[in-house]
């Protein structure tokens, strides 16, 4: 088998049960509507969406793997490669730029010793700039692992959050 050949993966019963709760929302002949939710479930469970996972989702929903690939490549939040255990997305769009969003990003770059887009050597943190998170009045805002919005992230609070997360991972 060549290195880039796409294989599939086995979905656990628990994962399939979560998929099923999404599929049931749509008409029986429109299961594809659940693809974005299924991929975000995969990402939550595995940290990223591999090509093998795309194939498994495609098989589950009865759609071509290339159509799943189109989804993971089109939407910003899917991780096509492994990321740190904690993915930090700091909004730097104009309303946030006016309220220290970019400053928060630069602060984290210095604190974590990585440039935007990078991952720390210990695999704990990936830092990304993001477009509008839709929480403009709370700036600086940061989305952690796609699902947790952290508001008013001053340097002090960034310190507490990062240091707290490091401590839970025994890397403080």
């Amino acid at each position: 088998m060549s290195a880039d050949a796409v294989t599939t993966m086995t979905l656990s019963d628990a994962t399939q049960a979560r998929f099923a709760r999404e599929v049931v929302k749509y008409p029986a002949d429109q299961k594809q509507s659940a693809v974005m939710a299924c991929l975000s479930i995969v990402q939550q469970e595995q940290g990223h969406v591999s090509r093998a996972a795309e194939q498994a989702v495609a098989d589950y929903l009865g759609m071509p793997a290339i159509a799943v690939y189109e989804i993971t490549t089109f939407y910003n939040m899917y991780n096509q490669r492994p990321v740190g255990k904690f993915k930090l997305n700091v909004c730097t769009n104009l309303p946030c730029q006016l309220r220290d969003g970019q400053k928060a990003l630069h602060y984290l770059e210095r604190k974590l010793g990585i440039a935007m887009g990078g991952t720390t050597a210990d695999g704990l943190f990936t830092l990304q700039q993001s477009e509008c998170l839709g929480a403009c009045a709370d700036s600086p805002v940061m989305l952690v692992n796609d699902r947790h919005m952290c508001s008013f992230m001053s340097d002090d609070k960034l310190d507490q959050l990062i240091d707290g997360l490091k401590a839970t991972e025994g890397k403080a």
Partner: protein
Amino acid sequence: MNADQIIAQFRATGVQSCFHDRHINPQIYAGLNGSNWSLKDYEARGGYQALRKVLGKDGAPPDAETGVAGLTRDQVIATVKESALRGRGGAGFPTGLKWSFMPRQFPGQKYLVCNSDEGEPGTCKDRDILMHNPHIVIEGMVIAAYAMGISVGYNYIHGEIFEEYERFEAALEEARAAGYLGDAVLGSEFNFELHAFHGFGAYICGEETALLESLEGKKGQPRFKPPFPASFGLYGKPTTINNTETFAAVPWIIRNGGQAYLECGKPNNGGTKIYSVSGDVNLPGNYEVPMGTPFAKLLELAGGVRTGRTLKAVIPGGSSAPVLPAHIMMDVTMDYDSIAKAGSMLGSGAVIVMDDSRCMVESLKRLSYFYMHESCGQCTPCREGTGWLWRLVDKIQRGVATPADMALLDNVAENIMGRTICALGDAAAMPVRAMIKHFRPEFEAMIKSDAPTAA
């Protein structure tokens, strides 16, 4: 403590932006405190009374002439038309009129869609509605579905606000259990099932036809119009799409009447509107005030311009709206017609305030980067043009542009306008043209002075 608990700590210390007493006659945010989102709290605030009234389940006597209890579909639509409610997502299209476009006798499935894909930079009002008053959206959607004879609906929620998606799902469960959703709503002959859908990071999906593509499990690339969604929408079926705040306005209108709603705004601009005030103010947040409230009053509610600074400019309707300088802004009232007359648009109601310390070139550079990043790539003028816009503004900001670049920037913007399938192209070009129109000297001051004047 585990990681989830640590993250939760930081969420809990955030101050949600709609909990303050600086609204004026609020309807959607009225009585919210951050913990009273659930069904019983909503009912205690008069929630679902509008739906009971519509379905004739409020105990009121039947109509003396017809002998029928409740409101007919036509009566609901007429009431919404009378209210002058206009779409709160950005376009400001009259809601009652949109509802009347849905084919009545269509033999197949029709769909109702709520656009909660709130990603227009500066806008964060729907997030607070979904988190803290989700049932008002559900009630508005059930009433809309009844008026248009629709039995299935979806709420498309911005992927980045996942906690709000989970909250909305929890509210749906409550509404189903209480008989407000599902078969035979409140024992009537009307059925309506509603589901939540989440995006995953694509600004373009706020465009209604891109949203439909996304909801079908595809890339969010806008469709040609016509056909409009009312004839060819989700899965090719007739579909009505309204913004979250639009649906949230409906229960109040039904309870109090279209005329009452109109009267709390101004003619052709009915009701209250939620403004997300961000940027250089002392108290950024969401403010619900009557349509037609002077901008100066809104600024005052938001604590005024950042202490020690003066107002320079305002983007009054989300990042796609043309910027207006302070002296124009201080004379407008916050409603569709007044802001349009001043040369911009109310859009989504996102008011981005900039003080006298701000560089307009740098601000435009960030916005241009955003549109380049979010162009879906379908139309050449937008896909290529947004890149040109960013590179040119970047060049100016770095001080290496020539006078010819300034002319080229204007020219590229002009050539994107009106030449794309959807409005993202225009949305990228409009801020450029407005920034140059109102702040040209700032741009010219950054042009290389020793550069030749011809290209």
